[in-house]
């Protein structure tokens, strides 16, 4: 291991400061930290909290119900990232709908779903648009392309979200945030600087072992001062102004709205929807979907888990009733979900 990284490791293992709650907002951070075994390095005084940064985890039950209605009732071909396939809706997941004959197609990119719709004019295609700032531009490019191509058979079921107001909502759950590097690659770092003014600390970082260890070391060092701080530890990808072209396309195609986060409730202005010129690509309007309120399990403590109010293994059904094979709550579904990561990497034993 190179020098700087072993130095970071030393800083972490030799930490003797006050208790610190660090929230990794991004599910991919959660996953990589577990995968690399980094949690085992941390002294007792440092607690990692897996926040709401997995779009699958925070997508409400009703959204899955809407997608299933489109597939089974309106015979739409559902194009989706693989992540959503096993997320439980009120009655079934998309995998369950597929068993009943729904056409569910996994795509790597929203642009591929647009391409598929173009090649299959006889089918109605709906792309399930979930994700944060990182993913939204791709969905926006797809809609723009569909308009340019004059597609009549393509639409989006939009549940995209933005992070800033979520940080505010989670302000008290952590002493510092590991900001999601790829969100900031789009959004830039001004948001984080702003948060410092509101007393919120954090660092932006990447996803390699070195980047993660370095970022943690930086947090420990900077926390010592007791003052709110921000540091961009991922400058090779994250520019202060982010990706202006991506921001522009998002602004052109989508506008903010209030939205529900599974487990956290409604966060004002944290959602996105298609702007008026793109309404013909809005699956909810095109298929005149009714307002759907999903029913999530009463047992699930995801909301608390996402806020660090409890650990996954504090949940009564963790690992027994709720497993990745048979998830009850959203955090158990996605690979990146906090409960899933705890379960898979033996959170009960060494997490």
């Amino acid at each position, binding site marked *: 291991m190179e020098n700087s990284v072993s130095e970071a490791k030393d800083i972490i293992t030799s930490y003797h400061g006050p208790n610190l709650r660090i929230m990794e907002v991004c599910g991919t951070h959660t996953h990589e930290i577990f995968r690399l075994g980094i949690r*085992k390095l941390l002294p007792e005084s440092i607690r990692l909290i897996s926040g709401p940064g997995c779009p699958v985890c925070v997508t409400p039950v009703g959204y899955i119900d809407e997608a299933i209605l489109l597939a089974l009732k309106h015979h739409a071909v559902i194009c989706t990232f*693989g992540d959503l396939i096993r997320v439980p809706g009120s009655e079934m997941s998309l995998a369950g709908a597929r068993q009943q004959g729904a056409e569910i197609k996994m795509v*790597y990119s929203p642009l591929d779903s647009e391409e598929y719709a173009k090649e299959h004019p006889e089918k109605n295609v709906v792309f399930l648009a979930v994700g944060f700032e990182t993913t939204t531009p791709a969905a926006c490019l797809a809609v723009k392309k569909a308009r340019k191509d004059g597609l009549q058979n393509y639409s989006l079921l939009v549940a995209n979200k933005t992070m800033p107001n979520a940080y505010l909502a989670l302000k008290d759950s952590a002493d510092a945030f590991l900001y999601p590097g790829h969100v900031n690659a789009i959004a830039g770092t001004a948001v984080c600087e702003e948060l410092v003014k509101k007393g919120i600390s954090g660092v932006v970082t990447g996803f390699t*072992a070195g980047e993660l260890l370095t970022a943690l070391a930086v947090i420990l060092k900077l926390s010592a001062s007791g003052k709110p701080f921000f540091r961009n530890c991922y400058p090779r990808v994250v520019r202060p102004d982010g990706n202006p072209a991506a921001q522009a396309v998002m602004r052109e195609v989508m506008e903010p709205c209030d939205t529900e986060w599974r487990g956290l409730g409604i966060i004002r202005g944290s959602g996105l929807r298609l702007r008026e010129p793109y309404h013909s690509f809005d699956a909810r309007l095109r298929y005149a979907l009714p307002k759907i309120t999903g029913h999530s399990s009463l047992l699930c403590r995801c909301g608390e888990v996402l806020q660090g109010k409890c650990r996954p293994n504090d949940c009564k059904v963790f690992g027994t009733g709720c497993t*990745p094979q048979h998830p009850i709550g959203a955090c158990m579904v996605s690979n990146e979900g906090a409960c899933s990561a705890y379960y898979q*990497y033996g959170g009960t034993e060494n997490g």
Partner: protein
Amino acid sequence: MDNTVTLAHGAGGKQTSQLIDSVFKAHFANPDFTADDAAVLQVDSGRLAFTTDGFIVSPYEFPGGNIGKLSICGTVNDLSCMGAKPLYLACSFVIEEGFPLDKLEEIAAAMEKTAKEAGVRIVAGDTKVAGKGQVDHIFITTTGIGRLMDCAHTSGKYAKPGDAVIVTGDIGRHGCAILLARNEFGIDADVTSDCAPLWGTVKKMFDTTDQIHVVRDATRGGVGTVLYEIADQSHVGIQLDAQKIPVAGEVSGVCGMLGLEPLYLACEGRLVVFVPKEQAQAVVDTLHQCPYSKNAAVIGEVTADMPGKVVMKTEIGLQTLLPQPGGELLPRIC
């Protein structure tokens, strides 16, 4: 004859015999091949191994092979993993109406070639034709009989603390090649399946040492799944070294793009072998001389603690559980 398989080919009359004669008998001919209800085999007393597998790969052709080759390799390898010399195969075909006859011919030819290489005889068969849409092109089930070598006492139950864990080549090629061949994600990479018949390889390992505790082909679910099975069956822990696991660059690249883990991708020509640590180098040396195991490597060892678990030493020297596989492989963005 028409150039596609029709329901008439499956109705049991003249056309069925014609299909069998012109495609299967032509390729599978050998003195034990039967036209009757069953083949009659003269056997000596002893231990036989008996195994069956269904093959439903889609697409049925892929870089490095086709479903015919695969169906022979799969069963030959299952026998080989028992330390059994493959002797006889029975092959059952379910073919979709409209399947091109020239493709069936290619599949039969691949089966013939692979069976010859493995030294096994195809002695019995069956052909059914399913209506359009009732089967995805073609399914093949192969069932094999092998003779266990006297020295062979391998089983998923026999892994012991102190054993070295060997993999006979870079992992995940087959699963990756299939994923690419489906052409669903627009990704292009030069990955051929590792699909290969491994009796020769296994025989050479047994010639090297008779202390082979476990041999398993890491097929469905990949190396990760097979290691968990063995850890469970043998009540031992398995500790892997992430940096020693051979993975082709292209396979890593594809996995990176789709958020997949090579350890869970199927192989069809890779074995996981458990031998006492002391024998490991000799076995690896032998493997390096066999055609399908040039990249064989020790990737870990068996421990008494953490029974039933597979632990990974990561690239930064920390230990963490290998997540237990389960469920279909889903490409992901988060």
